[in-house]
């Protein structure tokens, strides 16, 4: 409807039948209609026959008028002067309505006050639908029309958009909901996604997050994860291409992990938690779809590992005396931080006998020695995921995290003569030049400790890294968001 500049004052009322206040004021609507004539327009959101006691109603069941005029409450009465809105009131307040309309006896028999109800434009999920239908939503992404005869899930498989598991079809409505969870512009470029080095917008990230199964509330974490993956030190390109097993492992620290319901406890490295599962998967799908990183194509992994579907978990930060991974890396406990590690699956450690910190540290070190190969040192980083029961042994023995790390690193030192190529009749090993040196298992910043796991079980886990670590390959990266 167009209201010209020359029109006299017009009142526009927006109501819905499913609102007790709108029903209450039906006599008021009749009174207004009688007194204002063409000067009143009544839009109804749900039942075009309401209110039955007046003749001229305007059907707004499409909610176009309500959306375009930002109606939040019904009834809303708006005054237009010269075609421009000058003022609006909502709910029922007898005195306010009488002043607003300059009709002294308006609704004189009604109660003085009754608040309104929510406009149908505010129904759950409605805002995104209306934004798509009537708003200025312009996707930069091209659309793909799937014919009715096609199974939509199969169509996604056929186009190579999946990791081998079904994806959530990225409909415009789902993508809008994802985009509305961030203040960032849809056309903002996050960076170039390897291996094809194609620029990736927030919008493309949202599409892939939808497909991964993310709830919109996970999206800020997904964006931070993508940005972390694009930090040069992480070496995403090489990590994707390698013949080795490794792939991004996503670790979330800080308040965000609890706010979005991530799992850091029972089965933290396993299945079952939507946030854990889908945030890691969103990164993988983005690298597949935008980056073009296809297994057998640029992804040349000899065997790969199941974490290439998704590998994401939160750290257990319930013990205030145990610094988190993020704190080790210079952040505060109340910072939300994503850290990425080039990891190669999970190697379990069982130690159900150690009750002293000395025994347990030696025991964990013995298992850590096997990362990549028992004779390969200084080449691969690792994360020790330490369970509550093992943490308790250290705590009861009076060891803090720094002490645990220090002793494990010491215990892992080995004389080079046992590790060099050919030693023990095994050709694999470190270069002969290290024969007379004491050698560390890990680079100085290549050993990380993360707390996670259920409260029962004297088990911890090793996430071994990529054989190309440090400046020649991948280093752990962190991104606060």
């Amino acid at each position, binding site marked *: 409807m167009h209201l010209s500049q020359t029109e006299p004052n017009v009142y526009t009322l927006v109501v819905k039948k499913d609102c007790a206040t709108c029903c209450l004021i039906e006599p008021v609507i009749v009174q207004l209609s009688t007194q204002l004539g063409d000067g009143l327009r009544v839009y109804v959101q749900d039942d075009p026959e309401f209110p039955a006691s007046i003749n001229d109603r305007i059907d707004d069941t499409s909610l176009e008028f309500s959306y375009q005029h930002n109606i939040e409450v019904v009834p809303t009465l708006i005054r237009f002067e010269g075609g421009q809105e000058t003022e609006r009131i909502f709910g029922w307040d007898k005195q306010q309505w009488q002043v607003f309309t300059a009709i002294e006896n308006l609704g004189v028999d009604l109660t003085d006050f009754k608040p309104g109800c929510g406009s149908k434009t505010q129904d759950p999920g409605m805002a995104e639908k209306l934004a798509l239908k009537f708003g200025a939503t312009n*996707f930069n*992404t*091209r*659309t*793909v*029309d*799937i*014919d*009715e005869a096609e199974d*939509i899930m199969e*169509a*996604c498989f*056929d*186009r190579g*958009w999946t990791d081998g598991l079904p994806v959530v*079809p*990225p*409909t*415009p409505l789902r*993508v809008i909901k994802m985009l509305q969870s961030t203040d960032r512009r849809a056309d903002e470029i996050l960076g170039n*996604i390897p291996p*094809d080095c*194609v620029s*990736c917008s927030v*919008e*493309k990230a949202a*599409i*892939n997050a939808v*497909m991964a199964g993310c709830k919109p509330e996970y999206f800020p974490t997904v964006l931070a994860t993508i940005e972390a993956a694009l930090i040069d030190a992480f070496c995403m390109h090489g990590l994707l291409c390698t013949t080795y097993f490794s792939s991004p492992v996503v670790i979330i620290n800080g308040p965000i992990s609890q706010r979005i319901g991530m799992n850091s406890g029972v089965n933290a490295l396993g299945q079952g938690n939507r946030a854990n599962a889908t945030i890691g998967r969103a990164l993988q*799908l983005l690298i597949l*779809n*935008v*980056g*073009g990183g296809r297994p057998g194509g640029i992804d040349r992994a000899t065997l790969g590992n199941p974490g290439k579907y998704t590998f994401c978990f939160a750290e257990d930060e319930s013990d205030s005396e145990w610094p988190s991974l993020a704190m080790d890396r210079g952040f505060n406990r109340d910072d939300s931080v994503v850290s990425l590690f080039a990891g190669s699956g999970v190697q379990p450690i069982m130690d159900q006998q150690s009750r002293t910190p000395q025994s347990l540290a030696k025991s964990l070190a013995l298992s850590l020695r096997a990362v990549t190969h028992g004779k390969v040192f200084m080449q691969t980083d690792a994360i020790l995921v330490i369970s509550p029961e093992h943490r308790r042994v250290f705590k009861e023995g009076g060891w803090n995290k720094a002490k645990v790390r220090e002793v494990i690193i010491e215990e892992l030192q080995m004389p080079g003569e046992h590790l060099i190529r050919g030693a023990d009749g095994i050709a694999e090993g470190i270069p002969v030049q290290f024969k007379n040196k004491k050698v560390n298992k890990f680079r100085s910043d290549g050993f990380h400790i993360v707390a996670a796991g259920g409260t029962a079980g004297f088990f911890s886990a090793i996430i071994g890294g990529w054989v190309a670590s440090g400046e020649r390959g991948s280093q752990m990266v962190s991104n606060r968001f």
Partner: protein
Amino acid sequence: MTTTLLDPTAELQPVARQLNERLSSLVGVTVGLLDISKPRGKEFLDEVESQLTAVGAIVRRYCKPTFTRLAPAELSQQISVECDAVIEGLAD
């Protein structure tokens, strides 16, 4: 009614699904000929076989139990394992 999806890819390929890469030569290539069990299909495919053999292709013959239904999954799988390409004798 069509369903509209937003393309998750880098948009380096056309929207329409692309044909598989074409064979550059038929020499030494195994081509399956699938008879859908319609009358005279055999004679047609016999002629196709002789022409393919003449240019150096290896031909294997397959037959659907009935033209009225989709090929059984086992037959499709067998052809996919044994052949580099397949020609189906469709229609009349």
